[in-house]
């Protein structure tokens, strides 16, 4: 034993802007995404998809495809051995079309062949005879017909309450695509004894596992899901896409099978943000206090349920926004149509209703003659208040007032647009001289729940292991690019004092579920589990050494090193498995109210836009924000989430929409579905409001979704401010401004 000088605290712990451990391999092009995997003897898979939004399948002839040299398998629903259906909340979607197709692009058959091109050509020669049926594409008609995934009514407070000033409005939100850069892809490898290992990019390994096992009639231990490198998610990877198809093909052929969707297929291969139609009536006193809110929210869920019931609940629960109101009526419906299925996308229902309630707050302010920011402040919810819809007491932090005041007090830019066309609407198209530009400013505030709600048993497992080298954090959580890997290292460092932390991505057979990488939940959930597991490991290690602290050298007592890490674990690693749950939530009662949520986060956005009113062109100059983050565990990563989330909100405000014609997608490509580029990106000033949460590790809150919730509403409010137009629909199109 050598006595060494004690190190000065652990570096790279919580609260510091540590860089990502996978940053270097990513910039070198060495990070392996699910699309980069290969195996010996590998086949390529391809999918036959429906060219109709609704049709009866008369016949499927696979013989021409099977006859092609190099084709190993062509499978239809008749080849699916298990339940044959899947779904995240309710299993209602067939693995492959079963006698009928319900949306354009629905998988009908899958093919495996020696190479990608042969697979693609074989898929093209599978002969499917369809009898097209008139598709149901109008969500209003769907609700009239009772074609619903969930109807949800909230009634709270005095039904006779009214305010003196009433404003009404109707709003629409278009269908947004996650457009994660990495398309759906994976590699399934049969184990030779009837099981399969699937390497896949996903948001939730264990939910995928459950659906693969059930739909294919396998035993849980026969299927192992491994996280492969994920190229973004944003909700697109919460549902099954090719997971079941890959396992089915691998098991049938006995060979590894790889599949990579191209961009067009990706557009139909994952769910989208629900298009919404919303009717609102707000009633307030002359002094601006909200007295009553009525809302009707209609979400088009498309052909299959996906997460529609939960998205609808969120849209309904946050229909009033971060404001107090004692009398609320919300009628929500998520309907089944023959449009593409919709489900999770960043913000998950709260984005849609925020677009409505924030437009209403501006209308109400105008009707009252009150400054719109003041109106928001005088109704703002805070710790100790009750959510307007559910009546749930806010027991954690929710600094709505502070968020609004902080943003209000940020200086507004007064710089003129200038003459550089790259900073003008229309850009280098040179359509717009600076003299034609009208500037507008808009303000919006949004709130959303953190983690899963409505009595869902929401947990995350982590195993922390002390080895001679340091700490290992084992998890099945999905790192999708957001930086969980970094935050877990930081939490483990601060909890243990040991800086050498490795995050180990266990497969589904090695550890329990971490839950979904969604709902802004992993920093709090898997982070919470990591903190507890590390604390337990530390306690064991300190007891073993009769020491008072740990660091990279080992265990210390009274500034003397008493055991090295190697000595500490000489009799075996110190390991702790922790299953972390957030405070329990309840199902809504018969009025749609109750303690349904585990916590909330609030953010405000102020957008500045330059508009060419004649041509209807918009440039979003800047979007500033103040966001309730609980505690910023990695400020640089938090800013990254904020800037990225705002960008997606800007996209939904001015350009991003999937266009459908009788259920057929008309713009399933990056040429036709426009995404914001470097030149479209606004400047962002973000202020982090740190009021520690009541259950997140070190007071942290999830930060991923809040940036998308009110940024869209703020940008559209700014365009209204510039143009004087009502603009009740997002994305705002040139013709909405110019005509």
């Amino acid at each position, binding site marked *: 034993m050598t006595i060494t000088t004690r190190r000065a605290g652990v570096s790279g712990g919580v609260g510091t*802007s540590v*860089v*990502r451990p*996978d*940053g*270097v391999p*990513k*910039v*070198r*092009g*060495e*990070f*392996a*995404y699910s*699309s*980069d995997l*290969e195996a010996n003897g590998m086949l390529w898979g391809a999918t036959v998809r429906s060219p109709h939004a609704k049709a009866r399948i008369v016949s499927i002839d696979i013989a021409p495809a099977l006859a092609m040299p190099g084709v190993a398998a062509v499978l239809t629903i008749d080849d699916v051995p298990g339940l044959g259906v899947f779904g995240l909340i309710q299993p209602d979607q067939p693995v492959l079309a079963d006698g009928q197709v319900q949306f354009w692009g629905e998988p009908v058959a899958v093919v495996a062949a020696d190479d*990608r*091109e042969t697979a693609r050509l074989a898929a093209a020669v599978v002969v499917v005879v369809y009898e097209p049926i008139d598709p149901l594409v109008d969500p209003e008609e769907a609700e009239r017909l009772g074609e619903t995934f969930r109807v949800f009514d909230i009634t709270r407070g005095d039904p006779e309450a009214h305010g003196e000033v009433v404003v009404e409005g109707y709003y629409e939100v278009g269908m947004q695509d*996650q*457009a*994660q*850069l*990495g*398309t759906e892809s994976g590699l399934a490898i049969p184990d030779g004894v009837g099981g399969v290992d699937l390497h896949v990019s996903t948001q939730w390994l264990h939910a995928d596992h459950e659906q693969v096992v059930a739909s294919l009639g396998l035993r849980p231990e026969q299927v192992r899901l491994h996280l492969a490198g*994920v*190229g*973004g*998610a944003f909700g697109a990877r919460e549902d099954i896409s090719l997971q079941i198809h890959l396992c089915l093909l691998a098991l049938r052929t006995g060979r590894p099978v790889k599949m*990579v969707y*191209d*961009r067009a297929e990706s557009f139909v291969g994952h769910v989208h943000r629900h298009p919404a139609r919303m009717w609102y009536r707000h009633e307030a006193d002359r002094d601006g206090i909200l007295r009553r809110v009525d809302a009707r929210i209609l979400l088009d869920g498309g052909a299959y349920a996906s997460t529609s019931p939960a998205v609808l609940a969120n849209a309904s629960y946050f229909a009033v926004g971060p404001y107090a109101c004692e009398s609320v009526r919300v009628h929500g419906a998520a309907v089944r149509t023959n449009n593409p299925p919709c489900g999770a996308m960043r913000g998950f229902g709260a984005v849609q209703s925020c677009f409505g309630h924030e437009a209403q707050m501006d209308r109400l302010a105008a009707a009252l003659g009150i400054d719109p920011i003041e109106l928001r402040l005088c109704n703002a919810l805070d710790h100790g208040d009750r959510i307007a819809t559910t009546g749930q007491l806010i027991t954690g932090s929710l600094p709505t007032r502070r968020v609004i005041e902080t943003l209000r007090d940020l200086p507004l830019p007064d710089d003129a647009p200038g003459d*550089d066309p*790259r*900073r003008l609407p229309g850009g*280098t198209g040179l359509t717009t001289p600076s003299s034609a530009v009208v500037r507008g400013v808009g303000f919006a505030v949004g709130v959303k729940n953190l983690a899963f709600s409505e009595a869902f048993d929401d947990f995350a497992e982590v195993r922390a292991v002390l080895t001679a080298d340091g700490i290992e954090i084992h998890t099945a959580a999905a790192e*999708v*690019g*957001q*930086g969980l890997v970094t935050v877990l290292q930081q939490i483990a460092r601060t909890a243990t004092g040991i800086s050498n932390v490795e995050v180990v991505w266990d497969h589904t057979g090695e550890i329990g579920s971490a839950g979904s990488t969604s709902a802004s939940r992993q920093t709090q959930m898997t982070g919470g589990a990591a903190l507890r597991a590390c604390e337990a490991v530390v306690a064991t290690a300190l007891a073993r050494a009769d020491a008072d602290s740990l660091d990279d050298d080992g265990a210390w007592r009274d500034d003397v090193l008493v055991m090295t890490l190697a000595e500490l674990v000489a009799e075996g690693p110190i390991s702790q498995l922790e299953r972390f749950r957030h405070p329990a939530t309840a199902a809504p009662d018969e009025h749609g109210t109750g303690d349904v949520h585990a916590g909330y986060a609030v953010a405000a956005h102020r957008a500045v836009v330059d508009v060419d009113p004649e041509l209807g062109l918009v440039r979003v100059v800047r979007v500033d924000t103040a966001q309730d983050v609980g505690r910023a565990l990695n400020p*640089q*990563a938090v*800013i*990254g989430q*904020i*800037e*990225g989330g*705002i*960008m*997606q909100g800007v996209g939904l405000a001015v350009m991003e929409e999937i266009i459908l014609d009788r259920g057929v997608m008309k713009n399933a*490509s*990056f*040429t036709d579905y426009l*995404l914001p*580029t*470097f*030149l479209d*990106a606004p*400047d*962002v000033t973000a202020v982090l409001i740190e009021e520690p949460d009541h259950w997140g590790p070190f007071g942290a809150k999830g930060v991923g979704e809040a940036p998308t919730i009110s940024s869209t509403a703020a940008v559209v409010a700014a365009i209204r401010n510039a143009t004087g137009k009502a603009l009740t629909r997002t994305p705002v199109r040139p013709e909405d401004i110019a005509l």
Partner: protein
Amino acid sequence: MIRIIVNGVEHAADPVGPESLLTTLRDGLGLFGSKNACEQGECGSCSVLLDGRLVCSCLVMAADADGSVVTTVEGIATDETLHRVQEAMVNAGGVQCGLCTPGIVVAAAHLFETTPTPTEIDIREALAGNICRCTGYGAIVRALESLVGKQ
């Protein structure tokens, strides 16, 4: 059969018909650094240097690249030392999921070759053909701005 020099190494490849240079690099040569995210030249994830020109390798027919010199993201750094663009991207938080990153690294390295002191808006224009869905671009611009005036 075509011959191309990729990152200083001569390769022979046998592209199938109209196969793209991107497909040849990935599936033929096993160089998975260049990414395929749109196949239409819209996202820039497949950006490479072709005889010193910045191109979307998904839009170049491999057969047309016969005899060319290609630099992919794997060839931007020298050995274990990161190119300064790569280092800045990592340190400034310009990488999240990272799927766009190889293309941005190639495009940004090319920008600094051709325009040693770009302004902020020059950086944005030069990279306008590279879509990133995670970062909102701010951290990438900050990373590259930090390099202006340094060598």
